[in-house]
């Protein structure tokens, strides 16, 4: 979770990722940033997020992103 927080901070320094629950709905993260985020996750966690997982629900909050990473890791 901490690594993820670091990646997110690096991506968007002014956003409070602890609190935000609607990153997608409120257009805080756009598709470009999601693309960067996913490749950073690949770097740091050594896990490839499949395209099916790229849906709004999985990116609404830091927690949701972390849940997704864990789930994908388990499935691999």
């Amino acid at each position, binding site marked *: 979770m901490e690594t993820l927080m670091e990646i997110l901070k690096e991506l968007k320094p002014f956003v409070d990722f602890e609190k935000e629950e609607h990153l997608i709905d409120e257009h805080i993260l756009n*598709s470009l940033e999601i*693309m*960067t985020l*996913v*490749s950073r996750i690949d770097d740091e966690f050594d896990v490839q997020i*499949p*395209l*099916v997982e790229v849906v709004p629900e999985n990116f609404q909050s830091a927690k949701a992103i972390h849940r997704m990473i864990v789930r994908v890791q388990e499935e*691999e």
Partner: protein
Amino acid sequence: MSFHSWLYLPCFLGMAVLLYYCFPLKYRFLPLLLSSMAFYVLCSRKLIVFLAVTIVSVYAAARILDTFNEEFREKKKGLAKEERKQLKKQVERKKKAVLYLAVLLNFGILFVLKYGNFLGENINQALKALHVGGRIPVFQFLLPLGISFYTLQAAGYLLDVSRGKYRADKNFARVALFLSFFPQMVEGPIARYDETGHQVYEGHRFDYETFTSGLQLILWGLVKKVVLADRANMFVNTIFKQYEQYSGIYIVAAAVLYTFQIYTEFSGCMDIVRGSALLFGIQLPENFRQPFAAKTINEFWQRWHMTLGGWLRDYVFYAVSFCGWYQKFSKNCREKWPKFFGGWISAVGALFFVWFGMGLWHGASWKYVLYGMYYFALISIGMLLAPLGEKGMQRAGISPKSAGVQIVGKVRTTALVCVGMLFFRAESFTAGLSMLKSVFRDFSLQPLLEGKLLGLGCDGYDFAILGIGFVVVSLVGAWKERNINVREKISGFPLPFRWGVFYAGLFCVILFGAYGFGYNAADFIYAQF
């Protein structure tokens, strides 16, 4: 058959709706499928063969992909991680073969029919330039109705099944109806299978509220299309047809009015389409969300032709940026260059495919490719300058959320969009360029004040109607932006007022609609009559 025509609204749609509710609930997909096929044959005759090929191939390919997915799910149980990865690779390879074959077949049809001519001419140009003798034959094909729309829907469905987002549909009629539902055949929207696939197939009970809201939506669409768009077209057409004779404010007016025209026309058509679907109890996805409230170009494209943008994002942008070689490329970028710049390069690289596809999708000519590149350039530059702007504002102590910044953003975005539309409408890219240059050559507000814009296709009455229409459309947009639903508001009125509003709308279309003798392009061609 255009959606605002005598033939579609009272005749075709009326009969289709009647037929729909005559059938028992369970079998209501039948009349809908029948109407869709009839619509297609009426409009495109024998070319329905291409639609049939797409339906059959997509249905079959999706089923095969589905069995591979199932096989993998069954076999992977109890395997070690390494073995599982091995198996996955195998399955992926098989899936890729089927997927590529089906996508290639369908995009191949689209490509040959829509772009074959364009490609052939360019090859011939190249041969000529290289002084190579001989030419390849170039054919001009008749384009089957809606091929650009249903091919995208079909590809989206296949990719989703392949990615495992949902299972392939075993019901052939449902896939056929999903791909051929007649209201979507002319101008979209491009729907996803999980949005409309089940909706179009399952029978809907007659619901008074839904039905009337469908009728109201159609009426609103007609106002936009027949009263406003077709009226603006007369001025726009006059200027663009003989653009060499005009400059300065004339060109600006034409570009702005054309932007207004294309918005009212396209969004009006979408309202008629969505309204038509509502008569059957079917909800189609929205294609517009007040695009001119956008503060950046990026945001504009999240509000304009949203289903196309969404399709390109999911099936081009993500598909490119998630595939192996691109991941490697972007990793390289981030390692070799400074962090910000590396990220920019890798994002821009993937965006290129989106905007190239976007331009080409609109039509087979360099003008449209360059139209896509125009937005590609704007967005790339925008991304590069965004941090500078933010820092600048921070230093000057201006909040990015202040009204001033917002308004500047909206005006800037609208102006850039108008320039884009100028090129979109211009005869060719060079014509667009010379029009744009002529704006600055002798710009003066004098003609506007002297009323010289009158009589160029639109007289004082026409401009008055366009002006009132502009205010009404803007107000409705502003309310929607604040989450005020105008339709709900109206239905809350007491009956006499409510009906008054509907009659006003109806007679606005009937009396002030730009239809009939004197309004058709053909009438102007034969003006010497």
